[in-house]
Every structure is written in structure tokens, then in C-alpha cells.
């Protein structure tokens, strides 16, 4: 076993810390990516610090103050029940970001395992990937609606549905990564030394497939935040008594002619979060792509940066 240990360590060494450092350095050099990181970090901070940031109890009804325009005590105005829209948006960040992050976890773990198995065992490849194709044959939101229709509205079910819907995206990139890595020398060496499949997958193959998983996870996060909003907006997502960005939009829709502020702010919050995630995703994808690394290396002094 001592020898396999070495083979594994050598293989891990081949990914090299240098690539990661180089990648991070490249990310930091592009200003727009820093803006994206700032937006995402801001969203997380708001979610974590919600009780400190909120000016009111997000569920406190105050009929006397209903549909107040922004200003004064209510920074973003009030909704049809007199609830403070600002506090609701701040608390909504908790749920929307939680749902996004958990959906990413479901999609990455599920898709990662399926991709690893499909890529490593040619026998199972056909059937697993046909199932993934089948899932991808549904437009995302349609499949999520169908899942929610049969599972029933709850936060957990939204996470399961969105995670399931985005699983094939992760599975596909992991599988194609495995197909390449499987043929490399360090895998062959580990196999020759008698390492078991599980060990090879965990130590030799998975670390080399991490970068596409991270890129996909960032985009899936963005889609999941949008997906939660759409499901809740349609009334099939998070139950209405919990404040999520989608639910605030859904309620505000009925008062769009009199009180547009109820919808403007949660929508803007979604847009900024998703924008941040998209920019970070783009940046990571370019940074991991050796071709882009070369191009941006040459263009690093240009204003595009």
C-alpha cells in the first residue's frame, strides 16, 4: 500500500498548487471579477447579518402603514400588509441564498458522482448518460415545476427539484474530464500498483476534475437563485409565509400599478446576486482555460482587463 500512497501523492502533485495560485492571481487582476466577488460576498454578508441589518421585523403587520412609498422609516417602502419591504428583502437573502447554495450542493454531489462513474466505467456510461440526456430534454423550469407539483411546496423540495434539474450539467463536464484523466499515466501507474477504483477515483481523478465542477457550480448557483425566484413567483416554490425574493415579487405583482417599489427591490437584489455569480463564473472559466490565460495575459494591460 505504501507504494500506492506515493503514486497518489505524485498524481496529486501533478495538478500542482501553481495552477491554483496562477488562477487566483489572474482572477484578482481582472477588475470586473473583483466586482463580481464583491457582489456575491455582499449577498452572503446580508444573509448572515440579516437580523442586524433589518430595521423591522420582516413579518410584522401594520395595516395603518400599508403601501407606503420608500423613504422615512421604511427605506424601501411597505407592502400591502404594511410590512417593511427593506427588512423583507434582507431576510429574503437568507432563504434565496440558502436555496441556491444547497441546490448547488445537490447538483454538484449528485452530478459529480454520476459523472465519475459514467466516465470511469464504460459499461455504465451509456445508460447513465442517456438518463442525463432525458433530464436535459426538459426545459429546466418545466421540470422543476413538474417536480414541485408532485412533491408539494416546501423549501426542501425546492432545493431537491433545482438540484435535480441542474445535476446533468455537472455530470456532463465531470464525465468528459474523467474520460481524459482516465488515460493519463498517473492513473495507469496507480492502477498498476494495485490501487482500488475508489482510491483512484478519489485521489487521482477527482482532484483533476475539480476546476470544471467549480465553474459549473458557480453558474448553477446563479440559475438556482433565478429558479427559486421563478418557482416562488408562480406560487409553486417556497411557501408564501416565508420571505424569499421570489415570494416578495409574487405578492408585489398584484400591486404593481400602485406600489412598484415592492417588486423593484427584491428583483434588483436577485439581479445583483446573479450578476456577481455570472461574472465570477466567467472569470473562473477563463482563468482555468489555458487558451484564455494566454489571451488575457497579453491583454492584461487593456481597459477590458
Amino acid at each position, binding site marked *: 500500500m505504501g507504494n500506492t500512497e506515493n503514486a497518489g501523492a505524485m498524481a496529486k502533485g501533478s495538478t500542482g498548487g501553481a495552477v491554483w495560485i496562477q488562477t487566483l492571481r489572474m482572477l484578482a487582476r481582472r477588475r470586473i471579477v473583483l466586482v463580481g466577488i464583491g457582489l456575491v460576498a455582499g449577498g452572503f454578508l446580508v444573509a448572515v447579518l440579516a437580523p442586524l441589518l433589518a430595521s423591522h421585523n420582516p413579518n410584522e403587520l401594520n395595516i395603518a402603514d400599508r403601501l407606503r412609498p420608500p423613504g422615512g422609516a421604511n427605506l424601501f417602502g411597505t407592502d400591502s400588509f404594511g410590512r417593511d419591504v427593506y427588512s423583507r428583502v434582507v431576510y429574503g437573502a437568507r432563504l434565496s441564498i440558502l436555496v441556491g447554495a444547497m441546490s448547488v450542493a445537490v447538483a454538484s454531489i449528485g452530478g459529480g458522482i454520476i459523472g465519475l462513474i459514467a466516465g470511469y466505467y464504460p459499461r455504465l456510461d451509456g445508460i447513465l448518460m442517456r438518463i442525463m440526456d432525458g433530464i436535459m430534454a*426538459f426545459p429546466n423550469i418545466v421540470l422543476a415545476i413538474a417536480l414541485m407539483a*408532485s412533491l408539494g411546496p416546501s423549501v426542501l423540495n425546492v432545493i431537491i427539484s433545482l438540484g435535480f434539474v441542474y445535476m446533468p450539467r455537472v455530470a456532463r463536464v465531470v464525465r468528459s474530464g474523467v474520460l481524459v484523466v482516465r488515460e493519463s499515466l498517473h492513473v495507469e501507474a496507480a492502477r498498476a500498483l494495485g490501487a482500488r477504483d475508489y482510491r483512484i477515483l478519489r485521489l487521482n481523478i477527482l482532484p483533476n476534475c475539480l476546476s470544471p465542477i467549480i465553474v459549473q457550480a458557480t453558474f448553477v448557483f446563479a440559475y438556482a437563485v433565478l429558479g427559486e425566484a421563478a418557482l416562488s413567483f408562480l406560487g409553486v416554490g417556497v411557501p408564501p409565509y416565508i420571505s424569499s425574493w421570489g415570494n416578495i*415579487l409574487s405578492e408585489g405583482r398584484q400591486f404593481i400599478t400602485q406600489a412598484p417599489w415592492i417588486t423593484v427591490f427584491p428583483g434588483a437584489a436577485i439581479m445583483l446576486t446573479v450578476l456577481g455569480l455570472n461574472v465570477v463564473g466567467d472569470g473562473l472559466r477563463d482563468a482555468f482555460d489555458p487558451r484564455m490565460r494566454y489571451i488575457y495575459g497579453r491583454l492584461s494591460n487593456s481597459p477590458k482587463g
Partner: protein
Amino acid sequence: MKEYLLRRILALAPVMFVVATLVFVLMHLTPGDPVSAMLGMDASPTDVARMRSRLDLDQPLYFQYALWIGKVIRGNLGESIFLQVPVMTAVLERLEPTLFLTLLAITFAVGVGIPAGVISATRFGSLADQSIMVVALLGVSMPDFWLGLNLIFLVAVKFGWLPVAGYVPLGTDWLSTLRYLIMPGFCLGFIQSALIARMTRAVMLDVLAQDYIRTGHAKGLSNTRVVYKHALKNAMIPTLTVIGITFAILMGGAIVIETVFNIPGVGRLLVQSVMRRDYPVIQGVVLLIAGAYVLINLLVDVAYAYLDPRIKYA
């Protein structure tokens, strides 16, 4: 080519089989008894029993599955519990608004997205490029229904230029139909145009860096000729795939947009059926949408192979 086409059509069978199986499994995931969910708590046992046999729920699961697949193959999607009409009829009745909405959206998306992407790529790093990319980034990041709500407030409520929501059938007055569909079509199309612009730009940048483009410039061809005749043609091929994906997002987006603008289309039918727990309709609509998407993808792939002789139909 003929052989390739045949192979592609045959490859549809397993995908559609997985799709149909998934739809069946999905609808049987419902915790508890779907019939009591549909009929409510105080339904009489006779009603429950009648509904169970109507939906074949009194049969063993494998038999239900076989029955369902058999019906689907013959184009029978069952009957709506709420509307009391065959699912196919219910869908066909609502197809018109959805079809025009998506058509309008894709026209806008392609008409704006491709030129924007080309301009961005040919003027890489310029102010025009940066502005287009910022707008496109905003476009792919905002929820389409939120854009719709904002537009309703601005265009319809504040300025009164267009109706707030609703739909007039095409047969009555096509001009009003258009007036009702402009805003929703724009919302759907704008988001897609952002996606297409980003893709076109990326592919164009790739193509413009190729040797044959430099050769074109070197032999004295005008810039317009190089960009539009030589580069764009090749850049269009991957862009085509994105347009195929666009259709899927459009079909999904139409569901939400139809809800925002109160358009009685297929998407609205799906959402209403979820509320009514009208399972046969949910099943049927989801299956039809997936089927349409698979077919569109087939068309895109075939067009792709036709346009790009490098693809060896393998």
C-alpha cells in the same frame, strides 16, 4: 447525410423513452394519495374509487406504466379532470398565444443578439463592446418576469402606451394581438438576445483570430467583406446551437411571462393545472414540451451537420 439523418432520428427513441418514463415517475412521486389530493378531504369513497379507476390508479404500478406508455405512443394523453376535455384538445386550444409569443421573442433575440455580438467582437475592447457586454450581462442576470413587471409599470401604467396584460386572439384583430404581445415578447426576447450576443461575440473573437482572416486582410479584402463574408459564416455554426437552447429557455420563460401578462397560453395552462392538481394535464404538457424541445434539437443538429462539412456525421 441520409444515413446520418436516419441515425439521428433513431437516436431519438431512447431519449423520448427516458423522457416519458421520467414524466411517469415524477407524477407518481406524490406523497400520499393523489386522488384525495385532487378531490379534497370530504370526497365520498365512491367518488374516490371512480377517480382511481379513471386514472388507472387501481392497477399495479408496472401495469399503469405499460398502459401509459401505450397510450402516449398512440397520441392519447388522457383527459383533464378539471376541464373535462382531452389533454391534447386543451393544449391545442392554448397553443396560438404561446406560439406567437415565442416566435416574436426569437425574432427579437436573433435580430438584436447576433448584430450586437458581431459589433462587440469586431470592436473588441472599445466603448461599444464594453457597453454591449454590460447590457448583455445585465440581461442574463435579471429574472425575465421582473423585467416584465417593471415594463408593465413604466410602459403600460405610467405612459399608457400598451395594454397592461391580456390577449386578443389573432382571428379577431391581429393588430391588437400584436399590441398585447409586444411587451411580453420583448421581455422574453431581450434575455435571449443577451445570451446570443455573448455567444456570438465569443465565437467571433475565436474566428477573427484565425489565420485565414489574416490572409483575407493581407490580400486586401475590405474589412466588411472579411467580417461578414468570411468570419460571420463560420461563427454562425456554434451560434446555431445556442439558438436551439434558446428555444428551450423560451418555452420555460413563456410559462412565467404568460403568468405575468395573463396570456392564456400553454404555460398558463401548466401553472393553473398545478394549482388545480390536474395531474393528467401536467403530465401531458410536460411531455409535449420536452418532445418539442427534443425535436428542435434534432433540427438544429441536422442543420449544424449540413452547414459544417467538417462534421463527419459520426
